[in-house]
């Protein structure tokens, strides 16, 4: 019972945030400052998700080469800067992670 409240509720929450401006608001009325701020949303939100995934894999900060996810992330960034294909970056990142995990047992 509790599960179904959460399941349907999560659907309502995600749909309302997605639909907020597209379905319910008039974008021509946005203030200028708001539009300037919007430009930085992707960089900020994505970094807030990615950086802890690389630097805190076990929940504690680890910026040393002993952290395989940090090295794998650096490899994926290096590929992403050269090739505009997400597939190449993801494959490179996973390959480095698996390689380091195999080497270190």
């Amino acid at each position, binding site marked *: 019972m509790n*599960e179904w409240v*959460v*399941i349907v*509720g*999560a*659907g309502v*929450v*995600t*749909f309302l*945030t*997605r*639909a*907020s*401006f*597209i*379905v319910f*608001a*008039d*974008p*021509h009325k*946005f203030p200028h*400052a708001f539009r*300037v*701020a*919007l*430009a*930085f*949303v*992707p*960089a*900020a*939100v*994505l*970094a*807030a*998700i*990615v*950086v*802890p*995934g*690389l630097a*805190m894999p076990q*929940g504690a*900060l680890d910026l040393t080469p002993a952290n395989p*996810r940090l090295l*794998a*992330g650096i490899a*994926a960034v290096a590929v*992403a*800067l050269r090739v*505009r*294909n*997400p*597939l190449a*970056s*993801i494959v490179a*990142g*996973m390959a480095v*992670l698996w390689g380091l*995990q195999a080497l270190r047992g």
Partner: protein
Amino acid sequence: MLPNARSEFLAGCRDIAPVLVGTVPFGFVAGVAAVGAGMTPIEAIALSLFAFSGIAQLVVAQLVAAQSPALLTLAAALVVSLRFLMYSAALSPHLAHLPRRWRIALAYLMTDQGFAMGTHHYSQPGDRRLRHWHLLGVGVTLFTVWQASVIAGAVAGAQVPAAWSLDFVVTLTFLTLLVPALRTRADLAAAVVAGAVALAVSGLPYRLSLVVASVAGIGAGVLAERAHRR
């Protein structure tokens, strides 16, 4: 369907294809996490159909596993979905001319990857009138592949060894969206501050660190752009 609408739709399906290599394991991980949290496979699949958001599904699974009250779990899902407000605001000027049912469908299908692809596509020169068909192609393709992957994960359950580190695909997927989003110094300032703050406040409950870090990063981007203009 007009010939141009059809070609926009198919271009959307094609353009999103390279992203799917991340979508498949990400969806699989989300399906495994929901079943691992004690949900039945049917509940895990229903959650995915209703929410259609990897991060929201993972957060809900974590909090269901921790036996949080429903209201707290939904509050956490709302917090990680706040970025959709920003995506919605950024896309809405392009979609304002469309009928309501189109806007409802495109809102439901909006994802991080679809938003990134959509803003890139709308920034290209040329006729923009039929580009919502491109968004629809991206959305339908991602939706189909995502749901199939979640179902596979929910059915296979916890049979995948943790040593495969499939969860790292989640981080890599967002990393491949982040790198092309860094076009100016102000973008870089936003990302660096958001990343640093995310590490500094990672102890906050209910994934609040994501929102605090995002707001700090957006503020840093706005300040950096102002400083640059002077």
